[in-house]
């Protein structure tokens, strides 16, 4: 049950394997490796649930999520990563007219907190 989510969020379990990622670097890489159709489908499925995910996560102290809630919360962080692309860049998985994204180094990129 490595992909199990808390009660009430079982419908999102299908997204966990590929989209529940613990670091900003992993989420950033996932976006860059995805198509417009893939990020749009993920956004349409998960973004309407972000508010409920955050309310759920706020039932725990910061940094003290149980494993299933952590998986769920990482889905919300993935929405934060791809939301500008869907909402502002017409679904382009890259930032349009930008510097080469992989040349930006995020010092915090491997942190899980």
């Amino acid at each position: 049950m490595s992909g199990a989510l808390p009660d009430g969020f079982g419908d999102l379990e299908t997204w966990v394997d590929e989209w529940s990622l613990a670091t900003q670097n992993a989420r950033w890489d996932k976006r860059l490796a995805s198509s417009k159709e893939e990020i749009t489908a993920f956004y349409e499925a998960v973004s309407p649930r972000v508010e409920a995910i955050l309310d759920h996560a706020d039932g725990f102290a910061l940094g003290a999520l149980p494993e299933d809630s952590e998986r769920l919360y990482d889905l919300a962080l993935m929405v934060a990563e791809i939301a500008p692309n869907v909402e502002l860049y017409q679904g382009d998985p890259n930032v349009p007219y930008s510097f080469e994204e992989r040349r930006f180094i995020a010092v915090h990129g491997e942190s899980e907190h």
Partner: protein
Amino acid sequence: MCAARVQEQRWASKYPWLGTGPVSSEPCISPSVFEQEVEKVFKRVWLCMGRVEEFPEPGCYKLKQLDFASAGVLLIRGKDGVIRAFHNVCSHRGNTVVVPEGEWDNFGKKGMFSCRFHAWSYNDKGELVGVQNQDCFHAEFCKEDNGLTPIRCEVWEGFVFINFAEDPDVGLQEYLGDMGQHFTGYPYHELTYQHTYYTYLNCNWKIGVDAFAEAYHVNTIHAGSFPGTFSTGLQMVKLLGDHRTTAICFNPPRDGPPMATLSQTRARGSLVNNVNGTTLPPTINDESRDDFSFELSVFFPNWLLHVAEGIWFTHQFWPISHDKCLWEGKYYTRAPTTHSERWAMEAAVCLQRNAWLEDTATMEGTFYALRSGAKKQLHLQDEEILVRHGYHVLDKYLDSEA
């Protein structure tokens, strides 16, 4: 005269001594100008090296390579709480004391700093305290005279500055002058939740600084991430000594995107909304504009400090050669206390990172194109007065004696 003047030129009127003509493109591409910049600017003025919070305990150190000076700068917090700066060079035969790893700053904590070559060791004050086989050295050698070579280091508002000059023209307070006063009192030390990006850019350092020192580019460069957001023109421009600052104001989007809107209800993380708050000192937005978003400033030569309600961020461009520089972008908010707040800050940082990806997109292309020599002059409009002032100040330094 080719162009009709269509509106009052606010900043040229306020600062007529800057002139209005085009500026030379030569300083952006010339290797010989770069050599002069190193000697007359970067080795003479105060340079921001980081924050005191980067050194939470005695023995904490930061090693930063500054290639323009061929220097590794070792900053150490002593047991007495003082942060000192040294050249990372052993007094014996010149080996690096802390061996740099990777392509960026090194951080750590040590009780003693030992050179790997022959195990000479230095304490938290840079004093030489251990020499292996000291009895074998000759009478001319004196341990007390052979500490690490110090670099002048002073702190303002928690920002650690160094000056490579043995006898700087002015101290840090005087160097910052009215600009230091303008930015004093902001709670930098409370807003320490930090996200940092860096990259090495194949362009002259000033092309980077200049790209961030105006808002004329916003409607084009940020049509993606900040559509129609910051297009009211500069406000409250102040040229303060060698430094410059302006307010950037805000057009609230009619319908914000859903996730961005949600993030704004959960935490103060993004510039793209207005809030009331208490973090800004009275010198910032002194006209009390309702549409104030953030203060954009350039501390000569290479550091940009921006403050907003509950958010501050910096850009820094470190010259490496005339055609290469290191960019560092750092974004700070209050540390989140809930998962909601943390998510909202992640959303804000992702959008800000994307905006910086848009900003940096033009820099290498600009440099490559200018190197052709096709354009000897750059035309600056009234809203680019901070860029104009930058070249004015640079000229002053380059015209001075080394």
